[in-house]
């Protein structure tokens, strides 16, 4: 060891994944601080003749364009004085008090300035944020959004993955492009895939603002989200917009009946070098106030692309959640981040999401990477396709609706095939491109784009260009679907177009359920007011949450055991006490030869017995198999066997594989050697146990065989199986005396 190398304990700690993350010493002058920045203003509001002349310690002559827009459009002057006069701590308490309704809070917040609301929310602890989120989100029913992208903009894979995401329960799908010009093709492919997967799934294609609007106008996408807001004027302008252009854009979407939300998120200004010595949270408070002022129905925030900037400073993760709650307080739809991966550590990224998952949000993830990390063209998400089963298990653990459901493998295979068939037919019909059968087969089976070797990388670009040049709209896509026998999908795509005519999904927090009902602030308002109120999953939905594909019942395990049933072990007669000193009884449990045929390590019970017999034989002993019918307790099985044994030594074996060596003079719960971890015991170890039992029988003191060590969660893997196998054993217990068994 060299002198400047850390000691082993720290070398070991340094190797852990969390230490790949960057952690910043707070630097308020750079905006690297979650709350209470150097330049965060004191809340204030001065109204003169119905006009705001000072806001947050700044007089109107000094208003920048963000202040100006908020002051002229964003503050409800009829409640402003009452709201601003309220003590911030007292108001913060109302957020977690069931006696103050969501409506009453929303009313007062509409008169609060950005600094005032930041002051209120910075007082909530993590636990209080969970309660506030539960109470304040707009829509009662939580939901979730997925990213559906891939490295090559492969339309077949996009469609198959969109259908898959819909099958898993995502109600919004967001795609984007590695090659900007491919966007129209991606929009078409994902819209078709979504329609294959489920009715009412909203689709967006995240590209430059004007291009995204153009896609929407053609009906090729059904909502928009990439409308970015920033908390300082300079960064806003660097983003090539102003509050006025964003307000106009917001109206432009609504004028075509298209749902949209804006995107902001703490840390972006610091990341772009323009935080103006303000805290991340205060700047985000300006964004959220502006979002309300320009008339956006919702906000995607919670760090987003700069989540790891917030994550790098003390309290940063709490500030991300507080941003989300702030959106809810402004009576807007909250699409709560948890998209850009903010840590290399599975523990940290789970911790970052978990309170929001528990509290419940309009969209828990504003982009769960439903595809593989390498295929995510937004960059890896906080949650990715490898985490879908984790997410489903966590929903089940807490009984929480995170928006997802288990999807059946055969059904997903069918949907993926149908999605690739539909896209192939539409692209061919509209002259966008032709796909080979091999490509389609690979797309159906692929876990990611690396599994596809026969794609044509130029096809998406050609298709996209043709869509633009020949002015393909969703009407053409619907006609092409119908012409090729995809009537169901044609109808689902049409239903999304018709939704624009009704406009109900323009309201706050709107999604469609699978019957095309709009769930929104208007139709499905969150009225949480303490335990027993608010969102409760329907029995059918609870069953989806509770029933994951991996769960097994006792009947399932019994059936599995029966599939291994064998006639090679059978009862030969009743067992008597032996006086042969070479006799070693192998006492087996009641289910042996009846209902349990395979041990937890996957060996057949008869193979295990064969190994023990062989070990005994090596030591010159004779094994005798005796089934102990009246107890499933391994100690009692071993002791009963030892008392029948001529040598006084026995091997006790439960059919699930747990084994011990016993002797007739010991207490029932004592033993000479024990294999307690059945799933890890190999043939060789059972043979060693036979050898050691033989040595004990001869009066020697052999070196005990040790259980193999494992740092895996063996108990998590097998305990449910153990409960079932023990139950099967119990059902086999009878008052019959011990019986000799033979192996054929």
């Amino acid at each position, binding site marked *: 060891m060299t002198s400047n190398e850390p000691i082993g304990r720290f070398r070991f700690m340094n190797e852990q994944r969390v230490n790949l993350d960057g952690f910043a010493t707070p630097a308020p002058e750079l905006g690297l601080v979650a709350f209470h920045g150097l330049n965060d203003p004191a809340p204030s509001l001065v109204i003169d003749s119905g006009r705001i002349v000072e806001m947050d310690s700044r007089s109107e002559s000094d208003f920048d364009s963000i202040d100006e827009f908020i002051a002229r459009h964003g503050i409800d002057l009829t409640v402003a004085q009452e709201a601003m006069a309220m003590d911030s701590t007292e108001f913060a308490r109302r957020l977690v008090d069931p006696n103050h309704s969501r409506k009453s809070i929303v009313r007062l917040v509409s008169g609060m300035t950005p600094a005032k609301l930041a002051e209120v929310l910075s007082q909530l602890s993590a636990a209080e944020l969970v309660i506030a989120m539960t109470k304040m989100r707009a829509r009662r029913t939580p939901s979730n959004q997925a990213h559906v992208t891939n490295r090559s903009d492969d339309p077949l894979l996009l469609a198959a993955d969109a259908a898959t995401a819909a099958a898993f329960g995502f109600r919004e799908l967001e795609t984007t492009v590695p090659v900007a010009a491919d966007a129209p093709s991606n929009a078409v492919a994902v819209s078709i895939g979504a329609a294959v997967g489920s009715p009412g799934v909203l689709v967006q294609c995240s590209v430059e603002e004007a291009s995204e609007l153009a896609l929407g106008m053609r009906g090729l996408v059904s909502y928009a989200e990439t409308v970015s807001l920033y908390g300082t004027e300079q960064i806003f*302008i660097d983003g090539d917009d102003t509050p006025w252009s964003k307000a106009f854009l917001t109206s432009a979407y609504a004028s075509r*009946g298209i749902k949209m939300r804006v995107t902001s998120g703490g840390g972006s200004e610091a990341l772009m070098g323009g935080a103006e010595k303000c805290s991340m949270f205060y700047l985000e408070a300006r964004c959220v106030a502006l979002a309300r002022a320009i008339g956006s129905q919702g906000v995607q925030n919670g760090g987003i692309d700069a989540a790891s900037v917030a994550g790098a400073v003390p309290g940063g993760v709490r500030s991300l959640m507080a941003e989300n709650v702030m959106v809810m307080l402004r009576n807007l739809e909250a699409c709560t981040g948890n998209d850009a991966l903010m840590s290399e550590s599975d523990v940290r990224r789970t911790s970052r999401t978990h309170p929001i998952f528990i509290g419940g949000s309009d969209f828990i993830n504003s982009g769960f990477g439903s595809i593989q990390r390498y295929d995510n063209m937004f960059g890896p998400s906080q949650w990715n396709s490898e985490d879908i089963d984790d997410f489903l298990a966590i929903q089940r653990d807490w009984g929480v609706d995170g928006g997802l459901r288990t999807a059946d493998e055969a059904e997903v295979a069918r949907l993926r095939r149908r999605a690739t068939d539909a896209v192939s037919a539409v692209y061919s019909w509209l002259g966008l491109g032709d796909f080979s059968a091999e490509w389609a087969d690979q797309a159906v089976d692929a876990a990611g784009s690396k599994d596809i070797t026969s794609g044509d990388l130029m096809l998406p670009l050609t298709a996209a260009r043709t869509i633009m040049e020949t002015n393909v709209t969703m*009407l053409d896509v619907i006609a092409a679907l*119908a012409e090729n026998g995809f009537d169901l999908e044609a109808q689902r795509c049409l239903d999304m177009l018709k939704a624009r005519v009704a*406009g109900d999904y323009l309201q706050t927090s709107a999604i469609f359920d699978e019957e095309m009902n709009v769930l929104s602030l208007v139709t499905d308002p969150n009225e949480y007011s303490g335990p027993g109120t608010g969102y409760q999953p329907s029995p059918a939905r609870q069953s989806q949450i509770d029933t994951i594909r991996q769960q097994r019942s006792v009947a399932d395990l019994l059936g599995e055991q029966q599939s291994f049933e064998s006639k090679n072990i059978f009862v030969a007669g009743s067992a008597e006490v032996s006086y042969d000193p070479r006799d070693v009884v192998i006492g087996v449990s009641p289910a042996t030869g009846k209902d349990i045929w395979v041990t937890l390590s996957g060996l057949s019970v008869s193979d295990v017995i064969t190994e023990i017999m062989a070990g005994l034989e090596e030591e010159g002993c004779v094994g005798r198999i005796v089934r102990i019918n009246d107890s499933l307790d391994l100690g009692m099985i071993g002791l009963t066997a030892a008392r029948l044994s001529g040598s006084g030594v026995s091997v006790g074996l439960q059919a699930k594989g747990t084994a011990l060596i016993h002797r007739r003079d010991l207490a029932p719960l004592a033993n000479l050697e024990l294999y307690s971890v059945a799933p890890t015991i190999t043939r060789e170890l059972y043979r060693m146990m036979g050898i050691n039992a033989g040595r004990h029988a001869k009066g020697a003191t052999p070196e005990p065989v040790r259980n193999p060590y494992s740092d895996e969660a063996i108990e998590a893997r097998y305990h449910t199986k153990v409960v079932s196998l023990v139950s099967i054993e119990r059902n086999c217990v009878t008052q019959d005396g011990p019986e000799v068994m033979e192996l054929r």
Partner: protein
Amino acid sequence: MSSQFGFSGKDVSEVTVESIRRGDITLDDVRIHPSTLAHQADVARENGNPQLAENFLRAAELTGLQDETVLRYYDALRPGRSTSNDLLEIADELMAIGAVKNSELFRQAADVYARRGLIAK
């Protein structure tokens, strides 16, 4: 209940997969009607969001504009694209078609952009 008529005035029940297949439907048949947006504005106001209501009313004024015009107006509002006069001209164009709220938005922008250095150099 929301309006059952598209921007073109066609009853939305006439918009079917079959009528699309026949080529009888245009995008204007599946575009929102300004009266529907006015109704949605009422709903938004009743649900505690007057700003969302204002947005829907601005949107109602834009329904009659061609897509290209909407995109052009949006571009004009981006930073450094327009002079004050350009913005005021658009405000007049909007006023001429009765788009009062959008016209006011452009007027306000002309004023603020000049003060904050956001006009074309």
